């Protein structure tokens, strides 16, 4: 659709108009340097907000779920890091897989992951979630979560201590800090 010569807005459908106007706006924003200015301010701001309010999904699978509960208790108090466990996947951006994933659970976990809004991260907590752990020869345990969902952080241990869980979340902090989450447009 070449509209450079004589753009007739009446002849365009709503979708076409959106596409055309976005392209024009993009060119202007890029050419004038507004994009660079916006990226410079918005990226650190949004990044700071996202990494300091990570909401993991309150989804207890097995042993590590008790350490997750202990981590939200008074001694380890993960709310000081902005970690609040929410029960609905729609409100969460971190999926904490804390336990072995069986064949029956796998579709449910995949669906939970897909229900979470972007941007989202996955933490595999404990040996079972990383590689099957003690159930390495089981006929019903999936040997690692990363066989069906992408995993960002691995926390080894059986089960890991709450300190290790907090350390895993701090590693995720660093990972988010490096990523360009708040850029205005895709390059």
């Amino acid at each position: 659709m070449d509209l450079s010569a004589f753009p007739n807005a009446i002849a365009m459908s709503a979708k076409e108009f959106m596409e055309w106007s976005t392209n024009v706006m993009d060119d202007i924003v890029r050419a004038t340097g507004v994009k660079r200015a916006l990226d410079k301010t918005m990226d650190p701001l949004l990044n700071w907000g996202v990494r300091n309010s990570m909401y993991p999904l309150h989804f207890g699978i097995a042993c590590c779920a008790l350490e997750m509960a202990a981590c939200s208790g008074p001694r380890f108090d993960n709310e000081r890091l902005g970690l609040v466990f929410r029960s609905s996947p729609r409100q969460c951006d971190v999926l904490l897989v804390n336990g072995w994933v069986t064949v029956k659970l796998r579709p449910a976990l995949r669906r939970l992951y897909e229900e979470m809004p972007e941007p989202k991260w996955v933490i595999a907590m404990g040996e079972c979630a990383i590689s099957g752990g003690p159930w390495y020869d089981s006929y019903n345990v999936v040997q690692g979560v990363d066989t069906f969902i992408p995993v960002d952080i691995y926390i080894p241990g059986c089960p890991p201590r709450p300190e290790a869980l907090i350390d895993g979340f701090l590693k995720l902090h660093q990972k988010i800090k490096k990523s360009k989450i708040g850029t205005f447009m895709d390059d």
Partner: protein
Amino acid sequence: MAEMWINMGPQHPMTHGLWNLRIKVDGETITDAEPVIGYLHRGWEKMVEDRRYPQIIPMADRLCYGSSFTWSHVYCMAAEDLMGVEVPERAKWIRAMSDELQRIGNHLMWLAAIGPDLGNLTIFLYAIREREAFLDLFQSLCGARMTYNYCRIGGVRNAAPPNWERDVLRTLDYFEKRLDEYEDLVDRNKVFRMRMEDLAPLPAKEAINLGFTGPTLRASGVKYDIRHNDPYEIYDQVDWHMCTADEGDTYARYRVRMDEMRMSVQIVRDILKKMPKDGPIRVKPPRTAPAGTGFARMEDPRGESLIYIASDGTDKPFRVKVRSPLFVILSGAKVLLKGYKVADVPSIMGMVDVCMGETDR
């Protein structure tokens, strides 16, 4: 009104584990319920047939992560029964003491779990805080917070560390004071009581017919506790009594568990007084078991746990059967829930202290 099925789970804050409670509702009233389990099934019984006897102990720890010591304990007792190993006297006392500390820790986890369900987040924070004190005791005893790998076939792994008695008594003194606070916080809380009293009363006859054990059965007024009816280790030498309640409703189940925590404190104190201070803690078990069967049962925090081992004379078991208390209790979900409202589900199912690791195995 149209009836429909509602799925509560597998991801639901009420479940405290990984299972799916399907309930059939007529408006707000539950007319049918069906627990769907198997989300944590990992083939434990089949897998241990490929492990040597001592290798099964850490796997038994992971059967129920809430009370891992009791499960490795019941496995070790079954293996000792199979191999004919006599446990030294001192190890018996250490095992019983660890059992009771584990019972307190497990009941605290249960208290922490039901608190937010019934609209009381404070009790979650308090119970988790006190649980940490007991986890610290276990950490000084065997180095791990949750999965201990402490029990051995023929004894326990190591003796108690120095100052162990002082630490335990200090924790128990602290905990007893806190327990009074909880009872003030919960028992005098009108909202909490309204959501528990006269809810799902289960007559003694029906509880026995359903095969319930543990606090859920004792809340119905049945005097049945394996520590009393079939005393293992040293429970016949300790000064204690069984905690029961007569009403059989949800509040009675709550009361029995709270009383059991108090009783466990008394048992641990008594054990520390009567325990032999020195002596062997472990005997060497044979590497291969003779052909035959071994069997042990004990009072888990949730009910009667049982392990049955059949051996064919090699160093690996031929068959291991686990009897899980929760597997039986969950099958009674329909009886417990029928006729009550959807809002009563967390308090009714929370009071049986669900642990799916042992149920699905």
